[in-house]
């Protein structure tokens, strides 16, 4: 057991930090074009597609290096890469199960975010019981005719392509009649309708397919083997964001502590209230444990081991931790914690004199802090970044 970073990893971290210091844009990219351009720079610097084979445009870096990049990006407040689902899950699926033609046609454009990908899995009546999906793909000889509805589709409105699970044999047992396709989202038979969430934003969409066309050459793997394909690649990218995620937590925690110094109760800062202190101590202990657990998963990934149930534990652990963290932040901040914007839309006027709004927790791509310069402003996760949506998928995959 040895938890020191290797000299190579330390040097890699230094190099990454220098690159980010020199390259992170002063203003966040806003349009899809700007975000694709930033993604492209990250890719060219070797910070996107890090685990992909070089043969397909990747960098063959280590899981630790990938985690270090995410960690440094969190520290630097760098805008995330996009196309996370494509690069994290769909690309690896094509690499493992796809044809040479599919690899040539799709992979590089996915890495460079020239084409954005979404995942067409869940349906209104097929959620955790995914295998009961009813979207059908009927063989028409040279193509499949697709009819059905998908839901909870991240990046729907900006997606050019989707990885589709559809039923190709309605008589077979439910797991055995499903096939996997690459579906062109830019065709008349595909309609994307954003779903408005209780947050007011739309990170997910519904996708309606009416006589849509999936080409035969875009069938992934063999007919009726889609379920196995979906199973084997879901765990591909575990651990990538583990360190970056914890760094975002730590940034948010220090903002919360700052707020407890500025807000007062009974004539003294909240930070001097023993009840508040006990809560802060408890949440910080949990935060640190997330970090230790992340190192544990990374170290096993680094050795080429499959972390097995550990990656499910990590996911369960941090999602529940985040909820507890936000609940605590809301308790401490009171109404300030529920503030979204002032009526006139100005952010300045939303801050009290002592500015505890700066202490509002900002996870999920919104926690921004610079190692070299502070940028206390919030940043909303927009739809193209849907794969990094709060709180389920806190950080972007690269």
């Amino acid at each position, binding site marked *: 057991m040895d938890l020191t970073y290797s000299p190579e990893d330390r040097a890699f971290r230094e190099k990454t930090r220098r690159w980010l210091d020199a390259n992170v844009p002063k203003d966040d990219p806003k349009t899809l074009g700007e975000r694709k351009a930033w993604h492209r720079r990250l890719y060219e610097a070797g910070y996107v597609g890090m685990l992909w084979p070089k043969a397909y445009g990747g960098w063959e870096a280590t899981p630790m290096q990938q985690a270090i990049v995410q960690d440094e990006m969190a520290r630097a407040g760098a805008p995330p890469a996009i196309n996370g689902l494509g690069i994290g899950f769909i690309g690896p699926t094509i690499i493992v199960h796809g044809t040479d033609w599919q690899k040539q046609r799709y992979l590089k454009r996915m890495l460079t975010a020239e084409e954005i990908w979404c995942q067409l899995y869940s349906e209104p009546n097929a959620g955790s019981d995914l295998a009961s999906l009813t979207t059908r793909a009927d063989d028409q000889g040279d193509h499949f005719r697709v009819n059905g509805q998908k839901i909870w589709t991240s990046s729907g409105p900006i997606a050019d392509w989707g990885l589709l699970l559809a039923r190709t044999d309605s008589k077979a047992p439910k797991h055995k009649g499903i096939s996997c396709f690459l579906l062109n989202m830019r065709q008349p038979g595909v309609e994307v309708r954003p779903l408005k969430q209780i947050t007011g934003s739309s990170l997910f969409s519904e996708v309606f397919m009416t006589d849509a066309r999936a080409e035969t050459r875009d069938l992934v793997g063999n007919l009726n083997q889609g379920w196995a394909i979906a199973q084997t690649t879901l765990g591909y990218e575990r651990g990538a964001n583990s360190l970056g995620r914890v760094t975002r937590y730590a940034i948010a925690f220090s903002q919360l502590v700052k707020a407890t110094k500025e807000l007062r109760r009974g004539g003294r800062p909240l930070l001097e209230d023993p009840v508040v202190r006990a809560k*802060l101590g*408890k949440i910080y202990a949990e935060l640190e444990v997330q970090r230790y657990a992340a190192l544990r998963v990374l170290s096993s990934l680094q050795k080429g081991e499959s972390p097995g149930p550990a990656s499910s534990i990590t996911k369960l652990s941090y999602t529940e931790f985040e909820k507890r963290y936000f609940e605590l932040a809301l308790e401490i901040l009171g109404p300030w914690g529920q503030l979204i914007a002032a009526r006139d839309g100005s952010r300045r006027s939303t801050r009290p004199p002592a500015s505890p709004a700066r202490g509002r927790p900002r996870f999920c791509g919104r926690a921004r802090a610079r190692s070299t310069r502070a940028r206390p402003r919030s940043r909303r996760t927009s739809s193209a970044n849907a794969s990094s949506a709060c709180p389920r998928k806190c950080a972007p995959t690269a």
Partner: protein
Amino acid sequence: MDFAFSPDQQLLKNSARAFLDEHMTPAAVRLLWDDPRGESEATWKEMAQLGWLGLSLPEAYGGSALGMVESAILLEEMGRAACPGPYFPTVLAARAIEEAGSDAQKKRWLSPIATGDARATIAFLDADLDWRPDAIQTRAETTAGGWALSGRKQFVPWAHVASVLLVPAKTPDGLTLFLVDPGAAGLTLEPAQMMDPATRLASVTLEGTPVTGAAVLGKPGQAGPLLKALLSRGAVGAAAEMLGAARRCLDMAVGYAKVREQFGQPIGSFQAIRHKCAEMLLEVENSHAAVYYAAWALDAKAEDHDLAASVAKAYVGDAARRVCGEAIQVHGGIGFTWEYDLHLYVKRAKALEAMYGDADYHRELIVRRVAA
């Protein structure tokens, strides 16, 4: 970076598991519950032969000079077996003697500890049960022959079998650590009966107890930082034992859920039980990460080693309480009976929650470090 145990560490873990499975069966633990001393001399000697007592002592005193990670591995296994005995108090006291002792003191105590011929313990707590060294009220006054100690120490682990007590006391120079013979004049031991019959604690009353100048461990007035460091180490050790006890409870709960049938099927097929077990596993695995990170940080003298120790004690204390409690719930009524073995481990974890600073104490230390 490697979070997994090295082959040697894994070997140590395996041999500890094998030894304790053989010698510390639930029946053996129950026999010691009823034993006045509460420990087995034969097992103690075997532990010495296995090198456990000298595990982290310098080789010059018959030790193996291994680190806190190895200690935590052993302690986790001992917690898993609810093994009664003064193992951890003794090695923690040995650590104090090694860190602060003179050559003569080390020679006097460390070799006998490594060979299993001496036991030691530290009397941290005074009457108000405050773990902060600053809170200690026991006093030492200078006399012609050395010092006279007065005060009341509470919940001293295994004092009734100790060959030497490490007693911190206030002197005009500040907090000072003394090596005290439990048979000294003016010293009274009162064993306490605890909820965990394997945890033997005693109050120690000192009424002008005389010690010589040679009994001072380290420099007079310098005990504060040493006690804080020992508390960090104690916190990690206790967390490791709690982890072992919690994992045993989890294993028993999962095993039971697979065989106990209701409504014609194993109760483990019910989502209510499955989710409980999944949450328990989550807390046990996170506890593993917390314990071994903290142990490694102590060995590596990492910048955050004291923070990590507090995180481990605070997190694992809460987690072990929940896991052990949920294990009782998964078992239902049988889990609450004296004859079923689950309470051996539940009680071990409960007893350790309160030692070396409870979760609240360590949460306050954490806030002091990260929200100053």
